[in-house]
């Protein structure tokens, strides 16, 4: 039996952001089944669909750059893979492309985020400068091995800022990958503490995942 690896690029937008990674996996698995694509199953005692996600987005955040790898047993044109998948995906999840995997997930180093905070933008922007001036930003990161205190300052970079009436828009670049993954909410929580308030609304959109030299994860 042939085993053709395919990397699917997809978006997770709108209400779909409330689906956790585990539930997204289940949702994608069912969508693959409905699509009728020739799927490859593991050949063990308890065969299951091979599918693996490179860097799943956190619950509550949207993303334009999710990937899932799967394997097909027959050659299918990539446009058709995308077309058939999009016919079976629920609203909010949309395949944007399919291609042979080029890079290994260990090469992921950075992720770019577009953040929109509904708040008193002038006040928050001032606090942002204060926060960025600090040499060290210590936060508690919850990991599988328990809570850990880390300094996120070297791992968060502000690329752009836009001050609008009632809205502060930021472009952030954070460390990403298996070894160290910084969720921008850690940074935004610190900012909120300084601003002395919670924003009225927060939207976090991951726009791209890159290697350490800035090339897209393909």
């Amino acid at each position, binding site marked *: 039996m042939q085993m053709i690896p395919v990397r699917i690029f997809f978006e997770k937008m709108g209400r*779909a952001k409330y689906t956790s990674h585990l539930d997204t996996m289940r949702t994608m*698995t069912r969508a693959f089944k409905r699509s009728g694509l020739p799927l490859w199953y593991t050949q063990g005692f308890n065969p299951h669909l091979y599918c693996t996600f490179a860097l799943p987005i956190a619950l509550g955040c949207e993303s334009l750059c999710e990937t899932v790898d799967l394997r097909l047993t027959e050659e299918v044109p990539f446009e058709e893979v995308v077309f058939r998948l999009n016919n079976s995906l*629920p609203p*909010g999840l949309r395949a944007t492309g399919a291609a042979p995997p080029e890079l290994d997930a260990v090469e992921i180093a950075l992720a770019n985020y577009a953040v929109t905070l509904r708040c008193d933008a002038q006040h928050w922007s001032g606090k942002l400068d204060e926060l960025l001036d600090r040499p060290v930003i210590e936060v508690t990161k919850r990991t599988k091995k328990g809570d850990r205190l880390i300094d996120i300052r070297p791992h968060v970079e502000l690329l752009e800022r836009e001050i609008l009436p009632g809205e502060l828009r930021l472009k952030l670049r954070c460390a990403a990958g298996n070894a160290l993954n910084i969720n921008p909410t850690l940074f935004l929580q610190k900012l909120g503490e300084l601003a002395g308030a919670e924003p009225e609304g927060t939207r976090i959109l991951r726009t791209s995942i890159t290697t350490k030299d800035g090339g897209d994860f393909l």
Partner: protein
Amino acid sequence: MNLYQQLEGILEKVQKPARYVGGELHSAVKDPVDVAVRFAFCFPDLYEIGMSHLGMKILYSLKNAREDIWCERVFAPAADMENLMRERDIPLYGLESLEPIRDFDMIGFTLQYEMCYTAVLNMLDLAGLPLRSEHRTALAPIVMAGGPCACNPEPLSAFVDLFVLGEGEEANLEMIDLYGRAKAEGWSKAAYLRAASQIPGIYVPSLYEVRYNADGTVQAIEPLDGAPPKVTKRIIADLDKVYYPDKFVVPFIGIVHDRAMVEVLRGCLRGCRFCQAGFIYRPFREKEHATLNKNALDLAASTGYEEISLTSLSTSDYSQIQPLLTDLLGWTEGERVNLSLPSLRVDSFSPALLEQIAKVRKSGLTFAPEAGTQRLRDVINKNITEEEILATCRTAFLGGYTSVKLYFMLGLPTETMEDVAGIADLAQRIVDMFYQMPDRPKGKGVQVTISAACFVPKPFTPFQFEPQDTMAAFEEKQRHLRGCIRSKKISYKYHDSITSTLEAVLARGDRRLCDVVETAWEKGSHLDGWEEYFSPERWKKAFAAHGIDPAFYANRQRTYDEVMPWDHLDYGVTKSFLIGENEKAHMARTTRNCREGCSACGAASLYTEEVLPPCR
């Protein structure tokens, strides 16, 4: 304008936010301007429970198949979400439109268990509606309810405008169509309810007056305004032709029964005397195996589910089980779909059937002997012998199974301490048999789990006259059973008796309990089905506040000629049949099943079509 923006602010703060946003595959999204009637289908429990319920899936799809009806799903929020909704004035909304259900035309609840009654009230309150029917004076929204507990809906009669008795596929649409007319012609709510009471199967409690005797029992229930003296439940005469969905809403989050389900049959031909479902869903009707195979194919293709379950009260009684399994196994393996067969009976568990199940999956086996001795099994008409139980376990052990779960009830009528000890004896004999088998599965021990629930007498069963054991009696029996277990291979799980006591009160309650339910809700009972939210103290206070003794409802022996609070409702099975069955129970005499011969329970009278399929 919907609530999405407001929700965004709170969903990041709650557990499992996907419960509250909808947007799942196959959820029905319509444009409000295109529909005549908007219906909120409420399940008074959490999303994961409600989304597992087959009846809701059927009625949701059935309504949405009509272009002029938009049916949305609504579930009870967990405490974290409820608190935030109340804090920020977010009213209860439909998951499809995210619009407040208080603006809908109809709000329907399904009543699957008594402990959900306060959740019904809580959902009405969260919607921003007055709880009591009489305080909702406009035509919209009409609040209705159905489901098994609608067979005695009296404890909710002050809050719900109308109840649909029996199977809902036809009655729901008739009720909605009449509403459509009422809305177009500007009828009052009273006019609509009067007209609705003329639809067969629809019970409007406000059109009945209940009088009581000095001793607190019901004296008479009188219809008003031309309402029928008896409301007869609806059935679908030709089950094979009834609407069945070809799609289910596929949830994002894991739910309790996360699989495709096909409904094999309705009713049950066994007649176990404690079992309400066995009586209120009569007559026994089956679907054709080819229809079921098509239902399964459609659902597997549209949902992508990896598992299909053959659902009914007793799937192994399905007369076409072999051809159906042959149909299904012809494609499920290739499609990598698993089959699951819940509700198998001990006596119909053939080696051939076991082999076919084993092809699919090897999990534990579950049997429900219900009682520990043959005498008591005869009393409850559970026509299974100990030899059959042991033979089935042997078959299962030979097939490689090593764990068996057995379900029992404590507090069945006529039960003695010998019967209680019999539960432990039966489990012990299964363990002994395992070790006496020379060809038992090697290298593994056997594990027998006993689960013993507290018996709750229910309306429309032969035991509707029986007193329930007191909590003290239940606890004594639980202690006795635990003391009789000698082997480490047997584990014993028991249920909290306080919940069963409350269920017994509500199941056979009358209208005077409406005040108690309302007070329990006021005191904070919002989701009583969940142990972490349940407090017996609130209920005790609610009973005390209204001077009502729960023992009057739970622990009192009722005479055969007592007027039951549900005597004006007709589920086909006659009271004289129930009395006869009760008498036979006390003589430990069994009744044959419907396939062996008709025992004239009365359910056949429910067929009103020209074609009368026999109920066997």
